């Protein structure tokens, strides 16, 4: 079963929830946690484990081979991203701009632009007892987060059995990377804060999930601060409300050190149990 943890904006506690939920649940069963926030992967800061595997992730870009090139300029014409350019007697490729569509390469009359791999990020796999943790990190300056997310998902789907519980820490927002990270999930947990910013961004996230026709539930973080408008919104829109993590300065302090919360704060443990119950019930009902 695949569970994605998402939020309309960053900083609502997505990573805190993912890492605590995964670690706590892993005390009882095998859990795979994957950090898909490839621009800013942070889950790894909270998970201790032994690195068991690491691999580079690539995107394919064209490389100019001068010998047979007749300088027809067709490559430049077909590229929609300004990533290949004819300059006088040469063809220049701009790797960061390339989306890897292969048009220039496959349409070149003299096959002078073969596609070669270029490193765009790294995938790492850590293990501790019942918890498998995978994270991918985009190289600074690279812009195709979606491609790396996709490759990371493929890795997880190919290496772990279908019925294992897989938790995905999704990137924030409502644009392409989030869609990629959530579109295959069986259930989405949306994390928000009980504040005007939280509510505003939650609504965007809910619209996104509805558009993707996803099942989702809501978890309020820093419950007690702000107002009760998020709860009202949930009940008015019949959105399942799964748990509330209390607002405590102690939590912010623990978080800042990179420590897990549930080990020291019983209230958090209770909420994690609620979440596990909710997910397990959902899993049974839908035979996942």
């Amino acid at each position, binding site marked *: 079963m695949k569970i994605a943890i998402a939020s309309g904006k960053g900083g*609502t506690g997505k*990573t805190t929830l993912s890492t605590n939920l995964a670690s706590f649940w892993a005390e009882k069963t095998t859990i795979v946690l994957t950090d898909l926030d490839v621009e*800013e992967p942070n889950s790894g*800061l909270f998970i201790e484990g032994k690195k068991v595997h690491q691999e580079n992730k690539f995107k394919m870009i064209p490389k100019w081979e001068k010998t047979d090139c007749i300088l027809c300029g067709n490559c430049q014409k077909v590229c929609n991203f300004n990533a290949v350019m004819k300059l006088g007697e040469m063809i220049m490729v701009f790797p960061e701009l390339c989306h890897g569509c292969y048009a220039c390469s496959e349409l070149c009359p003299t096959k002078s632009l073969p596609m070669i791999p270029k490193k765009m990020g790294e995938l790492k796999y850590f293990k501790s007892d019942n918890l498998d943790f995978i994270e991918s990190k985009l190289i600074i300056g690279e812009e195709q987060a979606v491609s790396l997310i996709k490759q990371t998902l493929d890795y997880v789907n190919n290496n772990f059995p279908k019925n294992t519980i897989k938790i995905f820490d999704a990137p924030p927002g409502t644009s392409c990377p989030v*869609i990629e990270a959530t579109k295959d999930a069986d259930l989405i947990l949306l994390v928000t804060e009980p504040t*005007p910013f939280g509510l505003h961004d939650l609504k965007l996230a809910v619209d996104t999930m509805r558009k993707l026709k996803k099942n989702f539930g809501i978890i309020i973080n820093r419950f007690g601060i702000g107002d009760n408008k998020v709860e009202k919104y949930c009940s008015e829109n019949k959105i399942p409300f799964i748990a509330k993590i209390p607002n405590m300065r102690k939590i912010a302090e623990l978080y800042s050190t990179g420590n897990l919360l549930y080990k020291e704060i019983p209230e958090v443990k209770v909420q994690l149990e609620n979440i596990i119950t909710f997910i397990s019930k959902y899993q049974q009902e839908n035979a996942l």
Partner: protein
Amino acid sequence: MKEIVIISGKGGTGKTSITASFAYLGDKDVIVADCDVDAADMHLLVQPDWGKSENFHSGLLAKIDQEKCIKCGKCAEVCRWNAIPVIDKKYIVQPLDCEGCGYCAIICPTDAISMNLQNVGNWFLSNIKTGTKMVHAKLGIGAENSGKLVAKVKNEAKAIAEKEGKEIIIVDGSPGIGCPVVSSLSGATYVVLVTEPSVSGIHDLKRVYELVKKFGIKAGCIINKADINMEKSNDIHEFLKAENIDFIADIPYNENFTKAMTMGKTIVEFDNGKIKQILENSWEKIKTK
């Protein structure tokens, strides 16, 4: 003209609350640009009138004219994103998957495929409660935040500033290290990094600063919730020194940030004490950079 961009790498550091405070303190001397178009929240604190609104088109999307299609399947074959599945015996482009590369349109033997600009959102020009103007935007769901909308917001803000003779533009930058941030940073005269003393705060600060360095823009740093972890706070101070980043201020952990927000106010309107003073001093420092 000065362009001050406030970024944080990760969310939840109080970046928007702090930016809105600067907008408030800058009063009529500044133009505000909310470039966090993915989760634009600043409007909740500055009450814009949504005066002018325009659609924004960007990025291409393939469309197949079913009349002309002879079902040869070549388009589906060349598409690297598998964006053209056969549904009900028809080749149909899936908008969420299409990357806009245009390869299918080139390969189609009957010219049945056209590439069209997509409507990815709206941008607005508003009067805000401080008596100045703000340019902001809303990205459509699942739209690609290519940074173009960010660039649009910034350019419109610049045009207004030029027209009205304002010297400073305050920009609420985008999160992450990808394309939208790159767009937010390009052309900036000064960058304010908002961070918090936590393992992830430091991690993201370093990552986003790598990017700032690439642009060669001078930066300063505000540490929010500075007292939550003194050790980490010190680490940040060390980092700032080593990288020659201006230290602007330490802001203590304070729940007034949220209280002000629930009332739709910036923190400097709500808090009359220490926080207000810190932000006033910060703004004095920043605007003279």
